[in-house]
C-alpha cells in the first residue's frame, strides 16, 4: 500500500484512507461525470406522445369548435358565470363567518356553546350538500309560512328562492368544514400568545380576534383557498334547483341546439379561468398573513413613519 502511514489535513481530518483510492491522480484534472438522464428523457417523450394523442382525438372528434368560441362570451353564458362567481363568494363568506364563530364556540369554556358547535359540525358535515340544497329549496312543503314566534310571517316560497336555498345549503355546510380548519389554525398558535394578550388587559374575545386569529391565518388560508376552489365547483349543484349558474346556463343552451360537448367545454373553460384567478389571489393573501415570519422582512408597511418618529424621539 502506497500510503501506509495516516496523515491529517489542516482541519485535522485523517485523509490517509481516502488517499489509498486516489493514489497517483492529478486532482486538477479530476472531473465528476454527469450521466445522460435516460429516464427523464423517456418520460418526456411518453408525455409528449400522450398529449399529441389527446390533441389528435379532439381534432378528429366531431367537435364544432366555432360553437365554443361563439358561446364563450355570449350573454346567457356570462350570466351563468356571474351566478357561479356570486354564489361562490357569498357561500364562502357565510361559511367563513359561521366557521370562525363555530370554531370559537367549540373551544369555549361554556359547555352549551361547545355542544351546539359539535352538533352543528356533526349534522352539516354528515349530510350530502345536494341533499341539503333540496331540503332548503323544498322547505315550503313542511313550513308554508315562516315567522319569528308568530311575528313577521312570510310565505316560504317567496323567500326560499333558488339563490337563497343554494346560499343556505352551500354556506351552512361550508361553515361546518371551515370550523374544523379554523379550529386547527387556532390550536396551532402557541398558548402563550393568548396569555400575553390577556396580561396586557385584553379580554379573551379580543385576544382571540386581534392576536390569535391573525396568526392562525397562516395555517388557515391554504386550506380555505382549497375549499374556495372546491366551492366554485360545488356551486354546480345549485343547477339542480334552478339557480342560474354556468352549468345550468350552458345546459339551457345545449337543450336548444344539441351541441352538448361544445357547451360543456365552454363551461369547463370558465371554471378553469375562475379557479386560476382564485389561485393567484390566494398566493397574495398567504404572503400578507406570513408577515413577521420571514427573515429580514420587507420594510413593514404598517409603520410608514416609524423610522422618522424614532429620529425625532
Amino acid at each position, binding site marked *: 500500500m502506497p500510503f501506509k502511514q495516516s496523515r491529517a489535513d489542516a482541519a485535522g481530518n485523517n485523509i490517509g484512507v481516502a488517499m489509498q483510492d486516489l493514489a497517483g491522480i492529478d486532482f486538477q484534472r479530476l472531473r465528476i461525470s454527469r450521466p445522460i438522464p435516460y429516464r427523464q428523457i423517456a418520460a418526456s417523450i411518453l408525455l409528449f406522445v400522450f398529449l399529441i394523442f389527446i390533441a389528435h382525438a379532439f381534432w378528429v372528434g366531431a367537435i364544432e369548435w366555432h360553437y365554443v368560441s361563439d358561446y364563450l362570451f355570449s350573454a346567457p353564458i356570462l350570466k351563468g358565470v356571474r351566478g357561479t362567481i356570486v354564489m361562490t363568494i357569498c357561500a364562502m363568506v357565510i361559511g367563513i363567518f359561521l366557521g370562525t364563530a363555530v370554531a370559537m364556540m367549540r373551544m369555549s369554556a361554556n359547555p352549551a356553546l361547545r355542544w351546539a358547535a359539535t352538533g352543528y359540525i356533526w349534522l352539516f358535515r354528515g349530510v350530502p350538500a345536494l341533499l341539503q340544497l333540496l331540503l332548503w329549496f323544498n322547505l315550503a312543503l313542511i313550513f308554508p309560512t315562516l315567522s319569528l314566534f308568530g311575528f313577521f310571517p312570510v310565505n316560504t316560497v317567496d323567500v326560499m328562492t333558488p339563490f337563497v336555498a343554494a346560499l343556505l345549503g352551500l354556506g351552512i355546510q361550508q361553515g361546518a368544514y371551515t370550523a374544523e380548519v379554523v379550529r386547527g389554525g387556532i390550536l396551532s398558535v402557541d398558548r402563550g400568545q393568548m396569555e400575553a394578550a390577556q396580561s396586557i388587559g385584553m379580554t379573551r374575545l379580543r385576544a382571540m380576534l386581534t392576536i390569535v386569529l391573525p396568526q392562525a391565518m397562516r395555517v388557515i388560508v391554504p386550506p380555505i383557498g382549497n375549499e374556495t376552489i372546491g366551492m366554485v365547483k360545488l356551486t354546480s349543484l345549485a343547477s339542480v334547483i334552478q339557480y342560474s349558474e354556468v352549468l345550468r346556463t350552458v345546459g339551457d343552451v345545449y337543450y336548444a341546439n344539441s351541441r352538448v360537448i361544445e357547451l360543456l367545454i365552454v363551461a369547463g373553460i370558465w371554471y378553469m379561468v375562475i379557479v386560476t384567478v382564485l389561485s393567484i389571489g390566494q398566493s397574495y393573501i398567504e404572503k400578507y398573513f406570513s408577515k413577521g415570519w420571514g427573515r429580514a422582512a420587507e*420594510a413593514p408597511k404598517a409603520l410608514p413613519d416609524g423610522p422618522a418618529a424614532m429620529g425625532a424621539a
Partner: protein
Amino acid sequence: MPPILQAIHVQKYYGAFQALKDVSLSVDRGEVVCIIGPSGSGKSTLLRCASQLESIDGGVITVDGEIAGYRRSGETLVPLGDVQIARQRQNVGMVFQRFNLFPHRSVLENLLEGPVRVQKRPVEECRKEALALLERVGLAAKAAAYPNELSGGQQQRVAIARALAMRPKILLFDEPTSALDPELVGEVLSVMKELAKSGMTMVVVTHEIAFCREVADRVVFMDGGAIIAAGSPEDMIVRPQNPRVASFISAVL
C-alpha cells in the same frame, strides 16, 4: 399605604392536586421579591394566580388594595366579568419565560398594542413613551423589526418594555432568563436591575441566585406548593437557617 400585591391564604387546585397550599405573601410598593425553589413547587402557579391567568380556589389576592377577580358582597366574593378582570390585569405586568411577543406585529406595535388599543391612550403620547422604553432597554434601533428577527435576549427586553408600556403597578417575572443562551442572560438581568433601582415593584421567579442576592429586598423559598421560608438575601442565601433552603442553595450555586 396598602401593599401593592397581597396573597392571603391562597389555595389552588389542579383537579385533585393542590398546587398552592395556604400561600400568603405581601409585596410593598417599590419592593423586589425573588421567589426561588425547586421545579414544580408552585412558583409559576403563584405568579399566574396573581396575574389572573389562573383562578384561585381559596383565599384572596389583592392588587393595590383591590380584590383580584372578585367583588365583595358582605361575606361572599362574587366573580367579576371578563371585562372587569381584563381591566384589573392591566395593573399587573407579566414577563414570560418564553417571551410571548406577538410575532405578526413589529417591536413598536408590540409595545403599542396595550396602551393604544386596550387603554385607548393617545397614539402619539404612547408612541413617544414606547420609543423611550425601547431606548431604556437598549433597543431603540429595533423599533421596526419583527420579533423573529431578534435574539432571545433582545426579545425578552422587548417583552419587558411591552409590560412597562402598560404602566403596571407591579411587574411579575416567571424565569425570564431560563430560555436564553448563557451569553444572553446578562443583558436581560441588567435591564431588570436597572428597573429595580428605578423603584419598580417586582416579583421575580428565578434560578439566578447571584441576581437575587444583589437585587432582592426579600427572598422567598417555595417547596411543594407552600412558602417554606422567607427573609433577606443575607439570611436566605448567604447563611440559610432552614435545612431545605440550605440544601437547595448549595445545589444550585
